[in-house]
């Protein structure tokens, strides 16, 4: 707003607070906030600016201290106990050093109990002293090697730090970081408390939550757990929920075992297998196509063509390695918990099983394409009523018999390409449906 603030107030520039206030009150009666909200806002702006300028000129600007509120540490007067400001500040500082001492020698719970007692004493009851106490205490607390979270949470409850974090981070330059840590700890703490609850006499939902909490706060890798507990996929749902809660914070509490959390993050990730499987799949399909090409195109020079294809086998081998990796990492650990896998294993795993079976049947057992496709279709449909099974069924039901019946020359190319494309199409479809589901 570019208005002349002195013009708005109707006075000459001045540094006298009284004059400014009087001018404001005079003008206020003309631009009443009820009748002229805009005029009032202009006046208010001018008034605030004028006061600010006045303060700027009358008071030397204090040096910016380490914590922005340090200048507030000037002790207040306590009329009723009649101690000087200096004395009062000294007393608060004494309290802080005693508290730190108690904290280090006797532990957090005792320190909190001590503080609770102190809060009943006149010096800490005074309205300005708690903040001063915080101003002295906090910079010391955060230098401790291990943050006393329980004590911090107690102070937070008194001072509404988290609820009013805008203010808190204005007061302390480490405020925001500290609050992030406290929030992260709070989640750990609530889970750890939940984990220590006995399972006896709890209903299903509660049991599930307790188990999930136990798994997440555990310092051990999940490998050591008894798998039978994991068979419940609803347990994994709870774990997923809790993990999301942990990850929604800016930092993750250092009390958690990061390796454990990572293991679970992987375990609940439904799409972790996607790309390796797709690669393996695509390359295997490519072999099928390549062999067909070498057989059909040139009967006499099968070997040279096939050698050429062997060079192309390098990427295929790479794909296979990927596939193997995928199986090692994701399939084998899940082998014993098949139910879990059924729910959380990728549908693409089923694709890979299906396509591998299909290729094995084709090359090893020389079975008819139709037969394999049809049995695969049936198996997939039975297993989880998949759309791609139905689509494949259609393709086989229409295209394959057509090839056999009319033996159209070179129709196999179209057939293979169609199969390949439909494979891709199905993968895409799945990715879409599935990403949306989560």
């Amino acid at each position, binding site marked *: 707003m570019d208005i002349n603030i002195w013009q708005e107030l109707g006075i000459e520039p001045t540094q006298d607070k009284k004059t400014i206030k009087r001018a404001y009150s005079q003008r206020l009666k003309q631009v009443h906030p009820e009748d002229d909200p805009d005029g009032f806002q202009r006046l208010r702006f001018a008034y605030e600016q004028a006061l600010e300028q006045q303060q700027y000129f009358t008071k030397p600007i204090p040096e910016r201290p380490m914590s922005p509120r340090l200048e507030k540490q000037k002790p207040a007067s306590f009329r009723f106990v009649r101690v000087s400001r200096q004395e009062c500040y000294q007393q608060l500082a004494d309290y802080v050093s005693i508290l730190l001492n108690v904290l280090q020698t006797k532990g957090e719970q005792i320190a909190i109990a001590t503080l609770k007692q102190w809060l009943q004493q006149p010096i800490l009851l005074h309205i300005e002293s708690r903040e001063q106490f915080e101003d002295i205490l906090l910079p010391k607390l955060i230098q401790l090697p291990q943050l006393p979270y329980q004590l911090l949470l107690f102070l937070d409850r008194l001072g509404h730090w988290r609820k009013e*974090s805008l203010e808190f981070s204005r007061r302390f330059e480490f405020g925001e970081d500290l609050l992030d840590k406290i929030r992260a700890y709070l989640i750990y703490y609530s889970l750890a408390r939940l984990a220590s609850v006995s399972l006896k006499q709890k209903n299903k939902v509660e049991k599930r939550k307790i188990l999930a909490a136990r798994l997440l706060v555990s310092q051990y890798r999940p490998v050591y757990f008894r798998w039978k507990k994991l068979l419940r996929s609803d347990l994994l749902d709870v774990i997923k929920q809790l993990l999301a809660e942990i990850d929604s914070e800016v930092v993750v509490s250092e009390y958690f075992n990061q390796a454990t959390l990572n293991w679970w993050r992987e375990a609940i990730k439904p799409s972790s297998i996607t790309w390796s499987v797709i690669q393996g799949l695509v390359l295997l399909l490519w072999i099928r196509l390549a062999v067909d090409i070498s057989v059909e195109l040139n009967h006499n020079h099968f070997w040279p063509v096939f050698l050429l294809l062997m060079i192309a086998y390098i990427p295929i081998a790479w794909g296979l390695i990927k596939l193997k990796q995928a199986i090692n990492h994701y399939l084998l650990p899940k082998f014993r918990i098949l139910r879990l896998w059924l729910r959380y294993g990728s549908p693409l795993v089923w694709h890979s099983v299906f396509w591998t079976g299909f290729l094995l049947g084709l090359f090893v057992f020389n079975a008819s394409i139709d037969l394999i496709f049809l049995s695969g279709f049936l198996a997939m449909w039975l297993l989880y009523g998949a759309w791609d099974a139905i689509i494949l069924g259609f393709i086989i039901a229409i295209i394959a018999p057509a090839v056999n019946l009319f033996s159209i020359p070179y129709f196999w190319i179209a057939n293979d390409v169609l199969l390949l494309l439909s494979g891709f199409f199905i993968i895409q479809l799945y990715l879409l449906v599935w990403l949306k589901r989560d």
Partner: protein
Amino acid sequence: MIIGIDLGTTNSLVAVWKDEQARLIPNALGKYLTPSVVGLDDNGDILVGQVAKERLMTHSQQTTAHFKRYMGTQKVIALGKKSFRAEELSALVLKVLKQDAEVFLGEAVTEAVITVPAYFNDAQRKATKVAGELAGLQVSRLINEPTAAALAYGVNQKRDEQTILVFDLGGGTYDVTVLEFFDGVMEVHASTGDNFLGGEDFTTLLIEESKRKLGKFMDKDVLDENKGILSVIRNQAEIAKQNFAQQKVVESKLVWQGQTYHWQLEQKRFEALSEELLYRLRTPIERALRDSRIKSSELDDIILVGGATRMQMIKRMVATMFGRMPSCHINPDEVVALGAAMQAGLKSRDSALKEVVLTDVAPYTLGIEVVKHERHLNTGFFLPVIERNTVIPASRVKDVYTVNDYQKLVMVRVYQGESHLVKENIFLGELEVNVPAKKVGEVGIDVRFTYDINGLLEVEASLHDTGDTVSVVIEDNPGVLTKDEIAQRLKSLEKLKIHPRDETENRVVLARLQRLYEQNLGELRQVLGDALSEFMGILDYQDPEMITEMREQLEEFMDKIEQDYY
């Protein structure tokens, strides 16, 4: 004529600026305090005030109290077979107060100033306004309770410049306000509080303590679920709370199914239990002082407002915190209503009040959700637009930019609160802004918040380039009724019959007799039963003189019983 109404959690009052002074208006019973209790009688008519309060125990299913706590929420409160929202129940109380005022003034009243706790949020303020509309009152102004109290204290003060702190602990809400008077200006510097802290919470502590003690003799389920027993315990707890000033130990008594139970409530135990609540009283004061940049020693006065400040414990705590005695020379129950009447006088520009201009503040920080680029794209941060304790009316602008390439839509989500994370703040509403698809950061939007003098918020978003504007008065909140809903509820409320005012006195006597009948045993019970049937007989006879005579006798009799009883 504009009336001033203090719509409280436990009691409500109405006052008016007349003959150059604020005057409280008595209700049908000749009292200033009308309990904020609503009930249904056996014909399905509405009972409000003392009658309903007397029936809380005897007709617990058809009576309700403390509904102010649910203002601005979707909660539905059941009364018999009907169900109401907090706005409707408040509207019924307002209707009765309006009636009282009309009788007192001898003219129709259509306009009112209603007080709200300073820390009421947008939804709660709107709900209060709706309650006024439902009661057939045009709410010309919502004024904050502590501001009203300060007005009552301050307008006739002789000193021309002073800074005061108002400590307002009502039945269900708690407010702290720091204000300054100078040259006929009353300027609020800071308002803070707690919407869910009040005298009722202290009563609840005593109720729980009583339940623990009674649990030794009675079935716990009965204690928890029987509303009748609960209202007796509540009644006893309230009496104990009031008597702690004089007595260290208060005896309480409950009559249930022919048996009498006695228990004791100790003052010391009560104070120990209240420790947590006292902590909660402290923080808002610290914040108010910090926000107004005033040291406690610079305050000229500390004013206690609200019935709960009668508790010795509270007075003592305030005295220790500030190192001096607070003032409470105007009745803390009535001061808010008096202030509301003054505001009404100011509003109608009464000549005696011409000189005072009042400026208030927005008690909450209001802002929008933004995304921050730190380690990665972090969502859910809060960008303040109007900082708390900004003087209202106020209008502030922040510009924000798109975060994705070719983004077509920007959601402006409005929050209220003091945390830098939106999830810890309160969601108020949102508006959609269609933007041209351009690269990241090329599209800028001005978000303007306008906070009007009644504390209602309007949000406006305009594109930098084109100046296209989308604006919304925040009202998507599920706790706030829409216009259609209001019209619909207005109709259904009109169908309800409020019990005739001139019969109120008799109804109260009847309800009180009935309550005492159930609370007492033996001979006294029989006497009360006889009195009840006799009075009903006289009422049927319809001779006003006889009725008045008997009523007066009965009132005297019942006062005596109750004095002995406690």
